[in-house]
């Protein structure tokens, strides 16, 4: 039990955060986290390389989440090309927002983009680790992170505008200059 307890102590908060970003409520996130550790207790011994326990836990939690969502409404298809280029170049003033608002913005990002964003921001996973956890190619990770960040900026900007805060643009000093 000690090894298991050590693993829980090391990973449960991180897993909960990941689950919270994916799910609809704190209760569901806690349930997903608990279920993931239960599966580890049942099947974790099958993992030969124990150094991959963290990746196994995140992958399992993500699969559990997808399994529960299988019968629900599919993620809305997002066409980011519709977003204006200048919007994608604007960075919101995140410091003006509290953690709850940032988390809320993250949870508003559509599912396929939210999972890699969460792993990137919360756990500092590398692109390779994200690809392993989500079981997608590296190119897909890059694409989803790139688009996901743009969507997150849009959500944050909306929240910031609601607060009436000032927007800081990359292009504010050299408006119209192309660098992309």
């Amino acid at each position, binding site marked *: *039990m000690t090894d298991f307890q050590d693993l829980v102590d090391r990973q449960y*908060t991180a897993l909960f955060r990941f689950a919270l970003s994916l799910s609809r409520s704190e209760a569901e996130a*806690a349930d997903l986290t608990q279920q993931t550790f*239960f599966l580890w207790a049942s099947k974790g011994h099958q993992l030969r390389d124990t150094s991959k326990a963290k990746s196994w836990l995140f992958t399992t939690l993500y699969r559990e989440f997808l399994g529960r969502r299988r019968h629900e409404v599919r993620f809305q298809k997002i066409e980011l090309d519709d977003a204006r280029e200048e919007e994608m170049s604007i960075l919101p003033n*995140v410091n003006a927002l509290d953690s709850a608002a940032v*988390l809320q913005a993250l949870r508003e990002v559509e599912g396929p983009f939210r999972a890699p964003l969460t792993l990137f921001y*919360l756990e500092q996973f590398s692109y390779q680790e994200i690809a392993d956890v989500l079981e997608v190619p590296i190119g897909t990770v890059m694409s989803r992170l790139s688009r996901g960040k743009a969507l997150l900026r849009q959500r944050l900007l909306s929240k910031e505008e609601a607060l009436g805060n000032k927007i800081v643009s990359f292009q504010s000093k050299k408006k119209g200059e192309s660098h*992309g």
Partner: protein
Amino acid sequence: MDNREAKFILSVYRPDGQDASDQRFAEALNQVRRDPMLERWFGASVAFDATIAEKLRVIEAPPDLRENILAGVKVSRPLRWSSPLLRWAVAAAVLMAAIVGSLTLREMTRPRLSGWQTQGLRTITSLVDGQSSFDVHSQSARQLVNWLQTNRAPVASKLPRNLETLNSLGCKTFLWDQELVSVICLTRPDGGLIHLVITKASAASDLARRNEPQLVQHGQWATATWREGEMIYMLALEGSRDQLRTYVL
């Protein structure tokens, strides 16, 4: 490499600099050094990422989550299937069921069962033969019901009255036609086994739409199927309908 491509690659560059020596970023980082505008974008982007990460890192898990995980796993810990007592109990149950089954074989009719019922019986056989394992082992049926509820698997709000006093072995879930099905296995007082299979009523055939239990002999299996609310239940044992009847009436 143009700036758009460089931005695309650098979107996965971690803000704490862990990726600085990763060759996959080398060309994009060189591009950053060559282009002041891109450099400014990159600096702001990394700062933005670092701030987001910092904001999100203060989220704490619920205070009781850790204890719940540890306690939950402890409760659900599998009994050792290899324990001699349990092995003998299962062997005895299988033997008894086989004897009873062979005695009643000639009287059997072979009505058709729904797909989820057939798959339920296959799953039970596989569990009893040791070819698959329970998701959870527990001698307490109540614990199994709680576990199924926690995991949002189909489950009875309460067990049929005559099953409540029986010891359980464990439970398992499986998917049938995209619907989750739960199986709870219990030990009868005579040493045999009895199994409760539960799924949503939407998975039911016409056999299983009635509220009154419909008893059917299918090979060596006796089954009783009924509907209650949004759920449909099948009670099954290897034996006769008379043996089964005592548990449903």
